[in-house]
């Protein structure tokens, strides 16, 4: 067993990492087909010159940036509020949002938007996508910040109050400075989740708000091509770097 376990672990890690690694390798292939014809950056060049791809990437970045800022602020405040005073309703809805099947959340939001549009003269677009993203990122931010708060000594805030700080000053000057690593990590996670989302986005996006995952999905549906391999590899490396940064922050 002592020797079997490491062998098994090697196999498991290959299973987890090989598919993406292979995709990465073939994104540098000169050939359009799966025959190695030499190293080339032509698919990266093609992807970067693809206007549809570029527009959708800009949309994705905008959505992710907006959703990250809002959900990080709301989620951090929410975690702090829940730390001070538990609320089964808020905590419950956050957890439920985490386990709700994405497609269910997507159609629910679509139905909601269409109902709202009866009263307001607006249409699906960037705003509906951003609102949806803020909502599903909230739970992740709250949970990450909450985990950090558990190691914060509640006596520190009492000490701050004792020394004359108001509750809001105690939060800003004593508790929040201890939360920065978690807040940073949760922002990176929120960005990752938002940037990657396809299922919910595809339900609530309008004609002007096609995101990168939607373009990648459409191309994958058509069988894929080396250009998708290149985009996929760039996304993987980009998001991977964010996640490594988030892990670093959290372990501080």
């Amino acid at each position, binding site marked *: 067993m002592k020797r079997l376990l490491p062998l098994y672990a090697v196999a498991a890690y290959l299973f987890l990492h090989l598919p993406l690694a292979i995709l990465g390798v073939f994104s540098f292939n000169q050939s359009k087909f799966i025959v190695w014809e030499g190293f080339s950056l032509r698919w990266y060049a093609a992807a970067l010159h693809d206007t549809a791809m570029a527009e959708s990437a800009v949309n994705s970045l905008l959505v992710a940036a907006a959703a990250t800022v809002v959900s990080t602020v709301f989620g951090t405040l929410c975690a702090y509020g829940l730390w001070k005073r538990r609320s089964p309703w808020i905590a419950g809805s956050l957890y439920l949002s985490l386990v709700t099947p994405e497609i269910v959340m997507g159609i629910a939001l679509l139905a909601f938007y269409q109902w709202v549009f009866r009263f307001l003269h607006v249409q699906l677009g960037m705003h509906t996508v951003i609102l949806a993203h803020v909502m599903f990122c909230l739970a992740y931010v709250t949970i990450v910040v909450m985990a950090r708060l558990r190691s914060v*000594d509640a*006596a*520190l805030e*009492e*000490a*701050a*109050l*004792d*020394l*004359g*700080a*108001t509750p809001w*000053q105690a939060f800003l*000057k*004593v508790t929040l*400075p*201890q939360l920065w690593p978690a807040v940073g990590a949760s922002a990176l996670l929120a960005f990752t989740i938002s940037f990657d989302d396809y299922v919910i986005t595809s339900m609530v996006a309008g004609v002007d708000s096609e995101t990168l995952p939607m373009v990648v999905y459409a191309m994958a549906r058509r069988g894929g091509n080396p250009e998708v391999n290149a985009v996929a590899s760039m996304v993987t490396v980009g998001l991977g770097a964010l996640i490594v940064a988030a892990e670093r922050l959290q372990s501080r």
Partner: protein
Amino acid sequence: MQSLLELAQISKEYPGHKAVDRVSLAIGHGEFFCLLGPSGCGKTTTLRMIAGFEQPTAGDVKLRGVSLIGRAPYERDVSTVFQNYALFPHLTVRGNVEFGLRHKRRMRNSADLNQRVDAALELVQLTGKASRLPAQLSGGERQRVALARSLILEPEVLLLDEPLSALDPNLRKQMRAELKALQRRIGVTFLFITHDQEEALTLSDRLAVMNGGRLEQVGTPQQVYLEPATRFVAGFLGAMNWVNGCGVRPEATRLSHQLPANGCRSLPAVVRASTFLGNCLHVESDLASGECVVAEVSRFDVPFQPGDAVHVWWQPQDQLDLPA
């Protein structure tokens, strides 16, 4: 004596249990006052009601005759030294010490502020460590930062919540002496919470003993130790032999092979065991009634062996008659 801090019948009730039950106290100016009791007796809750972290469900807290009820912690002229010091981990020693000046006294960056911080650090002998972070300090140094952080505000009353319990035994004794000397020097009223009776006896001018949310007795260390009002107080402040409902402390309990002189209370007993404690011996003897009595015996005294027939005796004035 004019009282500075007054607790009038304060109670704290939680659903299903009374943490503090109608406690009344009057603490004088410049006193070193200890609140002593076992864990869960309500002493910390009492302190937290004075500091303003908890609201009493009944009763009043007055400082210089003015009620503090309804005032937030930052609006009270008292300051707390927390059990684990609660030093802000992201701020330096200086940052911690000046925190109160900036917030409670609303001082801005100035020569005056810096001078006061330096003076406070000097008071607790931490000059030169101002730019350290709490994590880079020893336990004793952290304790001193916590003291400086509160004392710099010149509070009317300094509340100390078991501040020595986080230190190792040797350091604890040393800090005890420093704390007492510091209080004498600056003259600030200390309300000190502890579950260690030796700490309470050595530190306080007066002390109060709490049990089960109620105040059992208030008095000087001598009064409380020598004339305990209840069996609980007698037992909590030191070991006690109970013979026929009367209490005798082991150091007042004598043993002899011969019948002692007239005027003493004396009972025949058989030695069960003798334990060497270094500076003295503890000799356990069984009385005919089945009760066991411990006597603290000098090691220069005649030896007592298990099985020896002896007489247990004591002076009448050393006997405490307390209702069960």
